[in-house]
């Protein structure tokens, strides 16, 4: 099939990486289509209030707000960039020699009769980001237990505090902005509990401190959160974890206990605190399903593998942001800029990319420190009891998981998922998948799970209603005249 538009770039995800990628691709003259599942640009990092709630000083809630406004204003006023909001990608089909076909439904989230579109671009940039990883613990299925990301989303996107008396717990620097958002939205944050102890944090943060200097903006961001902590007098405690949430129909209290260096709870150290909400985050899981569907190879630590130009193993498919490694918005933007430039026909060695490449190196170093300091430690499963729910959707308990692994003696993750149903519910293992893998691998002993299957593969990336599946779709990209009249016009070629 001959291609009509030789410089057509599709960007999936309008967070820091996707926005920077779209802008850079436009700078180089490509016509760009930018998709996001939300009706707002900015992704989770710049999640903000809707147009119906204009606020004079919204920027004080954000880091890099002016950068966001600059990027989004430039793209929104650019006739060469078509932005499609409320666009949920539900599948990617690979095609030999090209980036493949992207299938999308556009309309109200989980709506009925959304419009189906299909794109066959010359280059595709995946900037799908990440979501919180939360390790299971007794009571984590009670209403009132939230992810850190939920607390952030409601605070920044709605000005809603998820609770009055709140505890923030887990691991990683993200706990700080979560606590800051809660406090500034009216919650009393009773404490922030980081599971790692001081030696682990120092191992990550202290060596070769001069390497941190170019990442000073990151330091300023963290210092800002710490200043907020002092202002709101929020205690920050190391080596402690929420080991249980209590309540009948909602969370009424949590038990906080000291944990060893491997995060195994130390018995006799538990203290029960009355709360009406608890916000938990143990790091981030990259949203890999679209990259896997596009055929991209993953790295050993399960991110999308990319070269100097952010190109994946599939020609014409690029990746930027958290799916290539958890590193924050500055790294995501540097990667996005490089991806956009190269996807639009530039070269990774081009002079214009020098600064972005330097920033990428700097912030990657920063990301490695965070990983060393805050990474999940292997003793966490000791918090589980036999009846602790591990898979929330299918209500599979830790006891069931262990009993099935022992009785079947299977080493196949696929078989164990089918026999336990863990990870087979409507979230498709997004919440529990990696925990289930880890718990089962520990049960089957030496050699671990042997079928090479992971819980990251989801050929249908988002639920789609049968009526929508049966409906015809509009092809976009190859035949620009056929797009639906409600959509913004197809971008024009050339720089603005």
């Amino acid at each position, binding site marked *: 099939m001959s291609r009509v538009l030789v410089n057509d770039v599709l960007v999936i995800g309008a967070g820091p990486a996707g926005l920077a990628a779209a802008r850079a691709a436009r700078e180089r003259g490509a016509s760009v289509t930018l998709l996001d599942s939300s009706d707002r640009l900015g992704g989770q990092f710049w999640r903000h209030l809707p147009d119906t709630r*204009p606020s004079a000083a919204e920027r004080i809630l954000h880091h890099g707000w002016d950068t966001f406004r600059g990027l989004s204003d430039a793209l929104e006023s650019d006739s060469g960039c078509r932005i499609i909001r409320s666009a949920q990608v539900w599948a990617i089909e690979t095609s030999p020699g090209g980036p493949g076909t992207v299938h999308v439904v556009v309309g109200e989230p989980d709506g009925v009769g959304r419009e189906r579109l299909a794109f066959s671009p010359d280059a595709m940039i995946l900037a799908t980001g990440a979501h919180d990883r939360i390790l299971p613990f007794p009571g984590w299925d009670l209403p009132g237990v939230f*992810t850190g990301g939920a607390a952030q989303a409601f605070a920044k996107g709605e000005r809603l505090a998820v609770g009055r008396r709140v505890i923030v717990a887990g691991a990683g620097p993200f706990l700080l902005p979560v606590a800051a958002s809660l406090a500034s939205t009216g919650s009393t944050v009773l404490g922030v509990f980081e599971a790692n102890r001081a030696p682990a944090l120092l191992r990550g943060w202290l060596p070769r401190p001069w390497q941190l200097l170019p990442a000073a903006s990151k330091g300023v961001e963290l210092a800002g959160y710490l200043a907020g902590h002092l202002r709101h007098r929020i205690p920050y405690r190391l080596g402690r974890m929420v080991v249980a949430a209590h309540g009948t129909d909602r969370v009424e209290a949590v038990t906080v206990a000291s944990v060893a260096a491997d995060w195994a709870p130390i018995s006799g150290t538990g203290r029960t605190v009355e709360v009406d909400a608890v916000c938990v985050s143990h790091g981030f899981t990259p949203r890999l399903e679209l990259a896997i569907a596009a055929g991209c190879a993953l790295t050993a630590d399960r991110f999308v593998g990319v070269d100097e130009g952010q190109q994946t193993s599939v020609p014409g498919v690029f990746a930027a942001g958290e799916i290539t490694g958890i590193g924050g918005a500055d790294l995501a933007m540097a990667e996005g800029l490089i991806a956009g430039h190269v996807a639009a026909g530039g070269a990774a060695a081009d002079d214009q990319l020098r600064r972005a490449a330097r920033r990428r190196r700097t912030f990657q170093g920063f990301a490695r420190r965070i990983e060393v300091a805050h990474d999940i430690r292997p003793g966490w499963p000791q918090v589980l009891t036999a009846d602790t729910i591990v898979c929330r959707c299918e209500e599979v308990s830790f006891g069931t998981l262990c009993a099935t692994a022992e009785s079947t003696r299977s080493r196949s993750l696929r078989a164990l998922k089918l026999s336990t149903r863990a990870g087979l519910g409507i979230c498709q293992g997004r919440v529990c998948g990696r925990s289930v893998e880890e718990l089962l691998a520990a049960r089957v002993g030496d050699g671990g799970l042997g079928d090479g299957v992971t819980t990251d593969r989801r050929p249908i990336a988002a639920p789609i209603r049968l009526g929508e599946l049966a409906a015809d779709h509009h092809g976009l990209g190859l035949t620009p005249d056929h797009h639906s009249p409600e959509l913004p016009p197809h971008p024009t070629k050339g720089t603005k």
Partner: protein
Amino acid sequence: MTARLLPFGDDPIKPAPPTPVTITVDGVPANGVAGQSLAGVILASGTLALRLTSAQGRPRGVFCGIGVCYDCLVEVNGQRDVRACQRRAADGDVVTTQHDRRPSGDAA
């Protein structure tokens, strides 16, 4: 009461006065402001549990808030399985909580 919308007069970001919206949840009115998610309006009305689970009939509420966990599924104006955290509340929305029991005869 637990979750609470920051009163706009107290908010340091200096918002313009918001437009109120009213929805019903299982017939009971809940008030919010235009642009909020259904989940946000329901949380601020004091309701944490949005559905009962299929196997054990346990209450579940909003968990991830960003559309990943699907724990906040509700019926909206007759449409089932809508993530309450992803759908913006429209004035007059009729929300019904879901309790999808497993078919009888299923080993539970």
